[in-house]
């Protein structure tokens, strides 16, 4: 496959608000995206777009920053844990109250220019540690990655294409308008100018999507109505857009949002600490991927189970031992071509399906070492 024939794929997972510890639901999304990215990168030119800069401008992030400064003052966040900062976020959400656009303006202006509040910077630095531990591709958590389109340019582009309705001149909001496809009108900018995360996504993805052959949106399945809208808009100029909704991971049968807290024994930090002494790093990376991708699957039926995770870690250890020892399913045959192997796990699209690929490991005695190192470790 020559470079000129390689298709251009844009992977655009929903970002996690850097205001709280990562939970199993977040980890699931990160691992799915990572396997999809690393596998597809062998077959196509892949852009993994994960710009916190683009989403800092949502009310939940700017509002949290404004709340911290208003209620805490000048404090040192550098020694705080994700959990400490998460507790403050839970308090912010519980106390409610919608900050005015005027109160958020200094934060919005600085965030556009690349500034990040020290509380979120602290959280992102902790996440970088987890990314390194987990062997995740680091898409630039702390990098300044401004969206190409300004808010006004994005709104004008939508209106021009018949996909936007701007009523700010009469004190109304800006809507994303896909009603011609039978999808309901959706507000994306409040009458006083505050964008929601869909507006942020459009600023970031509208120009990027046109430069790719295929776009893959990975997101929490609770956001499905919004992502159906996003798919319609990004596909409007002919780009192929796939949605990959992922169900959250229930804890004891319950699905909760991190904004409500209650994550205590189930943060990614806690999980990683709990397996640090029992399994070596490669087994941890592979075992977590087996559990969060192949065992939990895309749905949300299976609750978090520590015992199943441990079984996956043991399974990973055995797979790695056999691979390292050079065993193969059919030792006399030549090593299969990695690209061909990965290509089997696509369907009618360019990107590799992480569920099919990861599940295929469970049916084998010893997968190819190259597959593991390139995609899973």
């Amino acid at each position: 496959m020559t470079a000129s024939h390689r298709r251009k794929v844009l992977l655009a997972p929903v970002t996690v608000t850097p205001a709280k510890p990562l939970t199993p639901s977040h980890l699931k999304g990160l691992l799915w995206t990572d396997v999809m990215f690393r596998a597809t990168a062998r077959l196509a030119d892949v852009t993994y777009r994960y710009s916190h800069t683009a989403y800092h401008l949502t009310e939940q992030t700017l509002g949290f920053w404004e709340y911290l400064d208003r209620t805490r003052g000048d404090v040192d966040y550098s020694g705080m844990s994700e959990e400490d900062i998460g507790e403050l976020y839970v308090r912010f959400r519980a106390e409610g109250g919608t900050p005015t656009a005027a109160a958020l303006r200094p934060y919005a202006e600085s965030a556009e220019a690349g500034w990040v509040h020290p509380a979120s910077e602290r959280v992102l630095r902790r996440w970088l540690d987890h990314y390194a531990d987990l062997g995740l591709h680091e898409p630039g958590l702390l990098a300044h990655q401004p969206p190409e389109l300004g808010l006004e340019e994005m709104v004008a582009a939508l209106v021009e294409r018949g996909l936007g309705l701007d009523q700010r001149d009469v004190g109304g909001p800006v809507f994303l308008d896909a009603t011609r496809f039978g999808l309901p009108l959706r507000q994306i900018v409040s009458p006083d100018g505050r964008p929601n995360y869909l507006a942020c996504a459009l600023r970031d993805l509208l120009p990027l999507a046109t430069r790719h052959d295929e776009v893959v949106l990975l997101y929490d399945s609770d956001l499905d109505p919004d992502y159906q809208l996003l798919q319609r808009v990004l596909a409007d100029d002919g780009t192929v857009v796939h949605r990959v909704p992922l169900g959250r991971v229930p804890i004891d049968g319950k699905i909760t949002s991190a904004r409500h807290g209650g994550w205590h024994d189930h943060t990614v930090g806690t999980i990683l600490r709990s397996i640090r002494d029992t399994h070596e790093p490669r087994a941890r990376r592979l075992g977590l991927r087996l559990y969060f991708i192949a065992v939990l699957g895309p749905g949300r039926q299976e609750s978090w189970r520590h015992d199943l995770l441990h079984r996956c870690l043991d399974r990973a250890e055995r797979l790695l031992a056999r691979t390292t020892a050079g065993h193969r399913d059919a030792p006399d045959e030549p090593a299969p071509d990695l690209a061909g192997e990965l290509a089997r796990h696509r369907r009618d699209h360019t990107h590799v399906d992480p569920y099919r690929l990861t599940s295929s490991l469970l049916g084998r005695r010893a997968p190819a070492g190259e597959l593991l190192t390139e995609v899973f470790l």
Partner: protein
Amino acid sequence: MTLTPELLRSVAAARLRDTHPELSAHVDSSTPQALRELVPRGETVVVTVIGRFSLPDWVRETCRFALSVPVERRAPWRRSFTRTVHLSGRPDNLRGRFAFDHVAADGSAAWLGPAPDAGTATLRRLLKTFRGGRELGAWSPVTVEVPGDAARPPVHRDLYVATANVTVARTLVQVNHLLVESVMDGLIGPGDRLTLRAVPRLTGLAAPLAALRVDADTHRPHELQAYAALTEEA
């Protein structure tokens, strides 16, 4: 005619009596609340879809729409107090799915109905209530001509609109009732000209009036306020 609380109450009571004569005996116009409690909820509605808003264009198109409503569909709408739901939307995106009864010449707005509530449910689910939260502000008097072939000698009237503490969305509601009911009463017809005049409040308006729109006061919700007035021939 000078506006007084008594006059406003009698206008509101007359509208109630004219719309539902069977309630005549019960109409107590001593307080605005007593009047409001009597208003029956109608089941016929008109849904308007607003894309871009400009008052003169919207006034002209509202009159055109009201004139286009067949006589047999006017009565149930009138008995529902010309109930109208204003939604945000782009008519050009909806025309493939909905058979509007009227679309503005420039595509800025569209009308569906009068129809039973259930007949508009799909459109209402797809769109959102129009939220023009800004005040209109004053404008220089502007005259619009109601399109169509005149059936009687055309008339020129002034349309006064209160602007202080009244949002665009509320102006739409108030002026809409005044216009469509005036069309039904024959006060506005094809070829007529209306000069739109902004005043902070209609208080002190001296011109002889053909129609007056009253509703709850924006500052004192238990009292009535005049929102729009149509004068006798200017």
